[in-house]
């Protein structure tokens, strides 16, 4: 399964392979590499059935661009009739009665789902170690984390178990695991992709997006995912450009904003060097580098760790053991049932964030924490707007380090949080950003982040695609896969 979906779609269209063969291959690879723990649920029979249906549709002349292409969904997307756990004991047996809009749209585009990928519990984590179903291992080094929270999706694509997977990104959860696993991942603008059926973490920050080998594949996938949805009050009713058609534009005169501080303290020297080399590649392609500043982004992590937990504490109030999900086996009365259910159903990181959010929203602290963070959020967003007066995209590292060792950071929440220092400002501002492979440091992948103007995904995909035309980092496969 080393083929990109662009190539797979060509092969399917030319009759060189069937969806059933592709799905069988994916299922065999998922089984052979089960020790990565990239998947929580795999329904082999359903996947084969759907593949055969896709093959029949193709023979009948009803094939779309992605008909028969195997994909995986992060286990945060509700899938009708298929267990959706969100990486939590709370939803370990939850079978949704409906499909998320992303799932529905990708089905309509012809994608065949082979399984649901592992993730940090309720998408809260940067290492995939908070999953109730155990950590995912990084295919480049099994003793290291794949990143998080979409760690299962990233590992599955990096190990070529599936050609593509969906992810979600609240503070970096698509881009950071994409970087740490050496794949391409796009976080679209807030509102570009429907959040309906995406289990909510922080509703003003959450956004779904594609994870694949290449920007070109992400263009195909975003085309299938994006668009207005009446079920999501924040889904934008704006035209969706033809992302694939826009890939070919050259980069002459492209202005790339660079923030000097993104190469300074805290960034591993080899990571900084790989990103600098990527920038030189862009200069060779005719782009010009422009210095920009994002002064308030220095406060983005503190701001995020008020807002995201505040929204989470409200969103996760619904898990009460009454309507769906886990209920504690023994309890005295209603309140005791709530408390025991939530204490036993949630893991330590989720409880930590619920506590933090509840505190920040409680009487006496609301203005000092929550409102303060909302004001800061605007300053952070305004900085981006000013920077984009002088440049077309902003480039820098995705993460200050390469994949770290399992267990290295999970005893200190704050050091884990600081891992997302370059990705979090983008969610606060609601902007699109893409993570793409830009080299290696000590044998581990390094990610380049490109941040775009609001709704400018087409340009990001184009700029990333052109880089992948002249580099081969995205084609590297970890040993043994």
């Amino acid at each position, binding site marked *: 399964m080393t083929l990109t979906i662009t190539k797979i779609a060509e092969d399917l269209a030319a009759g060189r392979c069937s969806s059933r063969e592709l799905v069988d291959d994916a299922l065999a690879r998922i089984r052979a590499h089960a020790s990565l723990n990239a998947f929580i649920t795999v329904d082999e029979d359903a996947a084969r059935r759907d593949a055969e249906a896709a093959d029949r549709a193709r023979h009948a002349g009803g094939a779309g661009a992605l008909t028969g292409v195997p994909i995986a969904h992060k286990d945060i997307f509700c899938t009708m009739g298929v267990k959706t756990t969100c990486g939590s004991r709370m939803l370990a047996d939850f*079978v*949704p*009665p409906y499909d998320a809009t992303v799932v529905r749209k990708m089905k309509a585009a012809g994608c065949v789902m082979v399984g649901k990928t592992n993730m940090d519990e309720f998408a809260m984590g940067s290492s995939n170690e908070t999953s109730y179903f155990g950590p995912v291992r990084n295919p480049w080094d099994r003793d290291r984390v794949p990143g998080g929270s979409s760690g299962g999706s990233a590992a599955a694509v990096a190990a070529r178990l599936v050609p593509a997977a969906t992810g979600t990104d609240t503070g970096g959860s698509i881009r950071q695991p994409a970087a740490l696993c050496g794949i391409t991942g796009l976080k679209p603008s*807030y*509102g570009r992709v429907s959040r309906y059926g995406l289990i909510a973490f922080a509703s*003003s920050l959450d956004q779904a997006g594609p994870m694949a080998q290449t920007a070109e594949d992400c263009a195909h996938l975003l085309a299938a995912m994006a668009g207005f949805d*009446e079920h999501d*009050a*924040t889904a*934008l*009713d704006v035209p969706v450009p033809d992302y694939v058609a826009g890939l070919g534009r050259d980069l002459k005169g492209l202005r790339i904003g660079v923030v000097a501080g993104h190469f300074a303290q805290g960034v591993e020297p080899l990571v900084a060097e790989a990103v600098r080399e990527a920038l030189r590649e862009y200069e060779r392609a005719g782009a010009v580098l422009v210095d920009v500043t994002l002064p308030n982004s220095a*406060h983005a992590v*503190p701001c995020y*760790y*008020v807002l995201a937990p505040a929204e989470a*504490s409200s969103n996760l*109030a619904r898990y*009460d053991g*009454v*309507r*769906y*999900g*886990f*209920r504690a086996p023994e*309890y*005295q*009365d*209603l*309140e*005791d*049932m*709530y*408390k*025991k259910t*939530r*204490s036993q159903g949630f893991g330590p990181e989720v*409880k*930590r964030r*619920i*506590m*933090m959010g*509840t*505190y920040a929203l*409680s009487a006496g602290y609301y203005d000092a*924490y929550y*409102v*303060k963070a*909302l*004001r*800061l*959020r*605007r*300053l952070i*967003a305004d900085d981006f707007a000013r920077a984009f007066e002088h440049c077309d995209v902003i480039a820098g590292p995705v993460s200050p380090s390469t994949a770290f060792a399992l267990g290295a950071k999970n005893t*200190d*929440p*704050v050091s884990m*949080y600081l891992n997302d220092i370059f990705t979090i400002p983008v969610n606060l501002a*609601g902007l699109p950003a893409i993570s793409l492979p830009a080299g290696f440091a000590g044998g581990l992948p390094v990610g380049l982040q490109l941040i775009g103007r*609001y709704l400018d995904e087409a340009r990001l995909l184009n700029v990333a695609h052109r880089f992948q035309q002249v580099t081969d980092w995205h084609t590297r496969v970890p040993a043994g896969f």
Partner: protein
Amino acid sequence: MNAEEIEKVAHLARLGLGAAEREGYARELSRILDLVSQMNAAATEGVEPMTHPDAAGLRLRDDVVGPEIDRDRLLAGAPLTRDGLYLVPRVIE
């Protein structure tokens, strides 16, 4: 944060914590609050709070009944039901 504050917040969040957990959260949340307090270095007087990306806006729809999910399917996911109702411990003695 001390254990007493932790207990108050835990109650608001309807989380039951053991003594060891309370101690752990007191330590960790204090560290997180140290991180969060770095926000105070930014001057934000007079800045309009931003609850979500501006351009996204918020849309209202007509207040009409839309497609419904079958009642039995919804109840099938509940931990305890009887006669089409969710069952919880008695709240009125």
